[in-house]
């Protein structure tokens, strides 16, 4: 059996980060002298040395919070004329790390392969909040660009003094500054600051606003941005050499598995430790109120122990929720716990009264899960009065702060290190498990690794909220849309936040909770439709039990967008069909009727919709396809469009579907996505993220639903909780990059996000294409074969 090798447990970029964190200490000479031993000792004995060294100096902990106002926090220039960038983000596999590096290289004027990037390491990288909301490029990219631009400015000043030449007469080429026209008089970045600090303070009220004296480059001068540089993280993910968060091992570590209440809201009455204490490798049973875990020396022993542990639980006095088949009726019958203010324009009542044709329809979307391919996991190391958590949690800073509060530790004695992991696309059990590992590690005084099991993950992970919608629309005698009404109900009460120490699952099970549960919310649609008379409102309704329940909500990729956009864009399609209008033209004319906004969403919506139609080869006609009504045979086909925006990104998707009328199977054959997210940092990386984001939406359209009886979730594995598979993959996917800005060549073209906008209209595009093929509307997600056959039998149209 091989020994655990502490020096080899961390990926090289983290080791590099550790080496580069304090360039003032002349790491080069030291490294030369001590070689790999340095890394191995530092990481193996790890926190110990640093903790002791720093605690000796005072009461400050070993992990001071990086000061984002210091340029040195963001950029390190090494003596070999390379750079390391530190950013407070994580990359869930969308290639954002590569994109951040491109942005910073461009502003710093250094070649892409001369730089490395470190992300989400709470004592090294500045707190940009981790990831979420597809705002990495749109929001967090700006401080990255500005700090790199500022570093470039400072380097030019230093070079000016060193070369005794005004800045205006200097040129930069890949980390070397020369006198214009006299390249022999030059100095490198390394010669100016390599291995030393910039000691430059930035200004700004918060991290998003920080800036130095320099301006960022105009778009026309950008060289690295806009290139499809291959993602730096992919080779090690393909050859098996990457160390993931699941792979970290520490000397003396033990394995824990949770034991969950068998019924939501149940109370743990007794635990029979003797049922497992004789098993090989037994370390401990740990419980605190309803939180319960077993700890064993080996992983498979912990799994066996969790299964064998004898416990007694008392179910709650009332059923925690209705069974999933009754969910939507339940939601419609509830009195809302909160409602948004009605958004009214024009006079909808009068417009409906005067309308020549009024349509109504209800839509339903169930709870859907994140259900990561790899269940939640974390390793916590409690040595020497500090706590280090190795995790793939994208809210890594919240994890550090939350754990510090939960365990009543000084924040600078806790650090969280982000490492690659199975992605989850939102706020999930990846948060919860970091707290569990840290709690158990502190209890036992040993490093503890926790991983959830498949059924635990699928049942207990946070859920995207369920929704019901009531839509009403009015057309005038010419078929023009004159009024629309939107009423949503979301089962989103007590939507949990980001790593608060009183809302993570372990806290709930321990009986710790905030005075007020979160109010939740029901979102309104995002579009640029100029319908004159509108009424929009969202309500939130609650389940009987809101704590210690597997039906707890947390952000899931574009938290409300797919639900809301399904209802809204499917209903717009119903209105277009009622008007006997082509669905693209119907939408274009509504967009034409809207007012422009500060992000030019009107112009960009028009351009995006037209680009989608043109790429697809859309010919004008109303839906459903008249040819299909007469079609013989099992298979009919259709096309559907859906459009929306998310933050600054505008997107239109056209789906081609084949429907097998005998089996009920929907196959999406072709997808076209027109996508305007402004300045694109890495076109290929962006397109592939959009491909996958659309298919994630397709999975939610066709398959995903959380099912439960009136006490527990019953969809707990890949058989009971189906997902998209290889056979569902479209034969063709086209992603068209659009720049619909009215001034496309403007030097300050903004960059917007790409992870979620494409995910948002996917369900609607499929439903609309299904109608085009069959003349039947699908108004309840997911569109599994059995519901498709039901809909076809009932001929809902």
């Amino acid at each position: 059996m091989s020994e655990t090798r502490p020096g080899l447990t961390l990926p090289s970029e983290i080791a590099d980060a550790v080496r580069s964190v304090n360039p003032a200490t002349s790491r080069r000479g030291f490294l030369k002298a001590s070689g790999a031993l340095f890394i191995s000792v530092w990481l193996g004995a790890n926190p110990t040395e640093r903790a002791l060294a720093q605690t000796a100096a005072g009461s400050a902990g070993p992990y001071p919070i990086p000061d984002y106002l210091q340029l040195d926090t963001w950029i390190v220039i090494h003596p070999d004329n390379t750079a390391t960038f530190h950013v407070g983000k994580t990359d869930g596999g969308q290639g954002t790390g590569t994109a951040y590096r491109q942005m910073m290289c461009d502003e710093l004027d250094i070649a892409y392969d001369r730089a490395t990037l470190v992300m989400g390491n709470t004592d090294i990288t500045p707190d940009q909040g981790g990831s979420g909301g597809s705002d990495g490029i749109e929001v967090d990219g700006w401080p990255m660009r500005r700090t790199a631009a500022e570093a470039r400015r400072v380097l030019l000043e230093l070079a000016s003094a060193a070369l005794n030449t005004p800045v205006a007469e200097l040129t930069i080429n890949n980390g070397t500054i020369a006198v214009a026209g006299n390249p022999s008089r030059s100095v490198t970045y390394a010669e100016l600051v390599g291995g030393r600090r910039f000691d430059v303070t930035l200004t700004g009220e918060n991290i998003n606003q920080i800036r130095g004296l320099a301006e960022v480059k105009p778009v026309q001068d950008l060289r690295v941005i806009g290139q499809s540089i291959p993602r730096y993280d992919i080779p090690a993910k393909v050859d098996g050499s990457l160390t993931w968060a699941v792979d970290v091992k520490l000397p003396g570590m033990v394995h824990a598995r949770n034991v969950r209440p068998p019924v939501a809201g149940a109370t743990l009455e007794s635990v029979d430790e003797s049922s497992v204490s004789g098993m090989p490798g037994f370390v401990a049973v740990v419980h605190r109120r309803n939180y319960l875990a077993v700890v064993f020396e080996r992983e498979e022993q912990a799994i066996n122990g969790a299964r064998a542990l004898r416990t007694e639980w008392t179910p709650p006095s009332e059923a925690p929720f209705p069974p999933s088949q009754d969910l939507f009726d339940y939601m419609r019958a509830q009195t809302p716990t909160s409602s948004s203010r009605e958004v009214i324009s024009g006079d909808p009542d009068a417009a409906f009264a005067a309308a020549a044709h009024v349509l109504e329809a209800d839509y339903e979307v169930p709870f859907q899960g994140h259900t990561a391919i790899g269940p939640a996991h974390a390793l916590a190391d409690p040595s020497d009065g500090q706590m280090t958590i190795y995790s793939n949690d994208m809210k890594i800073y919240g994890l550090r702060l939350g754990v510090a509060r939960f365990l009543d530790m000084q924040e600078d004695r806790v650090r969280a290190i982000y490492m690659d992991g199975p992605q989850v696309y939102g706020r999930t059990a990846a948060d919860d498990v970091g707290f569990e590992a840290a709690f158990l590690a502190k209890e036992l005084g040993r490093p503890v690794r926790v991983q959830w099991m498949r059924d635990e993950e699928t049942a207990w992970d946070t859920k995207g909220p369920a929704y019901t919608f009531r839509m009403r629309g009015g057309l005038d005698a010419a078929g023009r849309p004159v009024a629309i009404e939107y009423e949503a109900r979301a089962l989103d009460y007590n939507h949990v936040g980001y790593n608060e120490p009183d809302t993570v699952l372990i806290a709930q099970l321990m009986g710790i909770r905030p005075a007020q549960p979160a109010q939740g919310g029901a979102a309104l649609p995002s579009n640029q439709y100029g319908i004159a008379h509108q009424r929009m409102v969202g309500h939130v309704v609650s389940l009987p039990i809101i704590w210690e329940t597997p039906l707890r909500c947390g952000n899931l990729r574009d938290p409300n967008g797919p639900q809301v956009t399904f209802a809204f864009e499917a209903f717009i399609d119903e209105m277009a069909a009622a008007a006997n209008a082509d669905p693209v033209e119907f939408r274009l004319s509504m967009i034409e009727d809207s007012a422009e906004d500060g992000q030019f969403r009107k112009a960009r919506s028009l351009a995006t919709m037209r680009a989608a139609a043109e790429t697809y080869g859309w010919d004008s006609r109303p839906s459903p396809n008249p040819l299909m009504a007469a079609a013989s045979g099992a298979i009919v086909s259709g096309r559907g469009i859906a459009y929306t925006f998310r933050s600054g990104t505008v997107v239109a998707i056209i789906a081609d579907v084949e429907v097998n009328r005998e089996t009920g199977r929907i196959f999406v054959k072709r997808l076209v996505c027109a996508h305007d997210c402004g300045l694109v940092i890495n076109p290929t990386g962006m397109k592939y993220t959009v491909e996958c984001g659309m298919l994630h939406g397709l999975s939610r359209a066709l398959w995903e639903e959380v099912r439960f009886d009136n006490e527990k979730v019953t969809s707990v594995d890949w058989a009971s909780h189906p997902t998209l598979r290889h056979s569902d993959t479209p034969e063709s996917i086209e992603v068209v990059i659009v720049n619909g800005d009215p001034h496309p060549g403007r030097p300050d073209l903004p960059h917007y996000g790409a992870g979620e906008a494409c995910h948002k209209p996917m369900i609607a595009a499929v439903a609309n294409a299904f109608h085009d093929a069959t003349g039947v509307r699908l108004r309840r997600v997911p569109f599994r074969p059995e519901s498709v056959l039901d809909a076809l039998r009932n001929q809902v149209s």
Partner: protein
Amino acid sequence: MAVVTLSVNGATHEVDIEASTPLLYVLRNDLDLKGPRFGCGLAQCGACTVLIDGVATRSCVTPASAVRGAITTLEGLSQNGQLDPLQQAWIAEQVPQCGYCQNGQILTARALLNANPNPSDSEIRAGMEGVLCRCMSYFRIQAAIKRTVQQSTASFFNASPAEKTGAAS
């Protein structure tokens, strides 16, 4: 406890474990391999896939003591420092999003091509059906498999007659 002998990526290892221990945990925790990963423990997802004598096998439900053949993990797929053509195609097509499932995707594709070097589109879909990706990188995975097939077919047609018939060796 039982001493189990395993051949993994060309090396022989002896481990002293409970006979029922799934191969997955022995590879990960005793042999420190990182390719096979836990996804479901139920033979439903493919994340834990290894090759045993070239056949894709789910290590989460395979007792280590039952394994007789030669095990290849993702780490062992390259030959003489050269990545497998599938791995090269995976990089060229920039397949992974998070990448967690890709061990199972690559090894299942390798087993598929071992059995059928020139699969049709529907044979690729059928052969890969049981390997799940929650980042939905399926389109890219299929593109990488097709690229590999095309390149090996192309090199077959470009090869000398002797190479085609195997007489060159």
